[in-house]
């Protein structure tokens, strides 16, 4: 099977308190269509850094990235990020209504000429994550869990090829987390690829679990245990 997203020899050197730290030290990863990869590892091991590098959102990162075999060097950073979509851990809700937030991506130049989802699609999306709020609700009044789901829907509605989820269910109750899990599985089943960073106990949705520590990535040997420490 050809890989959807591939990364090789990713290196990230970040300024630390006592000199530079090699957070990623030659990380390679290949994500196939339909796959859900969970990245586990101790706090501060660079899981978020890895997601940012994959989305081309990491300053000074080096290494080779390709989507569908096409090198990232031939694609503009904006187009790459629209296809390899990172959902940051902290949901960033902008002013306006829930609808304004969901349609935010279509106000950007990178999606000029791409039709935005209609009301029916937006309502269906909101229902799919058990988000019981009206589309014209003031977004600043959403709870943390509701904001997290709006931010996830905002990314999903843009139909990226790859989803990079940084702790997508950290702020959610069990039922909402399950709904987010279902959406993630459906996205993968439709040919997308997913890389998740999770701290919670394994939810059984991942097709592979990789362990990041000391700047390198290895197969996580112990299943269903978060943050394996050797």
């Amino acid at each position, binding site marked *: 099977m050809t890989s959807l997203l591939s990364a090789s020899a990713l290196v990230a050197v*970040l*300024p630390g308190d006592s000199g530079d730290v090699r957070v990623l030290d030659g990380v390679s990863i290949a994500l196939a269509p339909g796959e859900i990869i969970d990245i586990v590892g101790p706090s501060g091991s660079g899981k978020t850094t890895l997601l940012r590098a994959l*989305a*081309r*959102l*990491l*300053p*000074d990162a080096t290494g080779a990235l390709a989507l569908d075999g096409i090198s990232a060097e031939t694609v503009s*950073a*904006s*187009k790459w*990020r*629209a296809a390899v*979509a*990172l*959902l*940051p851990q*902290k*949901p*960033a809700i*902008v002013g306006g209504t829930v609808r304004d937030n969901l349609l*935010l*991506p279509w*106000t*950007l*130049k*990178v*999606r000029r000429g791409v039709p935005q989802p209609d009301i029916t699609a937006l309502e269906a999306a909101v229902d799919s994550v058990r988000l019981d709020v009206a589309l014209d609700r003031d977004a600043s009044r959403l709870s943390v869990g509701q904001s997290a789901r709006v*931010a996830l829907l*905002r*990314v999903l509605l*843009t139909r990226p090829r790859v989803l990079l989820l940084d702790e997508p269910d950290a702020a959610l109750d069990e039922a909402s987390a399950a709904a987010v899990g279902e959406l993630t599985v459906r996205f993968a089943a439709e040919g997308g690829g997913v890389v998740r960073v999770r701290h919670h106990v394994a939810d059984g949705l991942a097709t592979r679990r990789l362990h990041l520590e000391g700047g390198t990535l290895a197969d996580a040997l112990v299943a269903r245990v978060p943050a394996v420490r050797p």
Partner: protein
Amino acid sequence: MTSAAGGVIPIGWQGLALATLFVVFVGVVSIRLSLGITKDLAIATVRTYVQLLALGFILRAVFRINSPWLVVGLILLMVLFAAQIVLKRSPDAPRGIFGSAFVAMALTGFIVTFAVTGVIVQVKPWYLPQYVIPLAGMVIGNSMTGIALAIERVYADFDAREDELLALTALGATPWEASHGSIRDALRAGLIPTITSMAAAGLVFIPGMMSGQILAGADPVTATAYQIVVMLMVAAATALGSVIALMLTYHRRFTADGVFLEKGYRREGR
């Protein structure tokens, strides 16, 4: 201190010495009440004397020499000092602010000043220092205040909104699209003092330039026309200067690939 222009009654050295008694009075109050500002007050008084007297003699010389090169050179010198002040007031801004502020104020200074002297007042010759230099001073001084406020504000706002900047960039936003909200708020912050003083002019205070012209014997209505031109000119200078400065600087906190440099990713000087 001998020549009197227009209807001004000249103030002699004795007059200046008497005016210093005002400060002496404040100094006595400060010592009696232990306000602890006696030294600062003394230094400020000396600076007022030295700086303004120097300015007076320099301007007198410049008016006599009456050379276009000297006028342009003085404007550039004012811009240089102003850019230095903007740099000092923005300790958290990335490298390159000095050059951007200099370019923004030089453009604003020349465009707005000569629009006023050349088109509205129509001075002849075009560089007549008596008009050009005071007007350029007001244009540059006000655009400096606006630029310093706007720059300070935009970088503080970027840091406060770093999560939003990351989320927008992740959705494919360009640095301009991601920073648009912060830039708008910063421009607004830079313009508010000017708008406030325009709204209060004539009600709360007689603007400085108008007071000066009236003291110099000008007809109050003539002075009013000048003051209106100056206030509109200052508004334009503040807006134009802040817009140019922000356009030249906002992207300095982003990488070439359009990623906002959060605090943890900043290296020396960026």
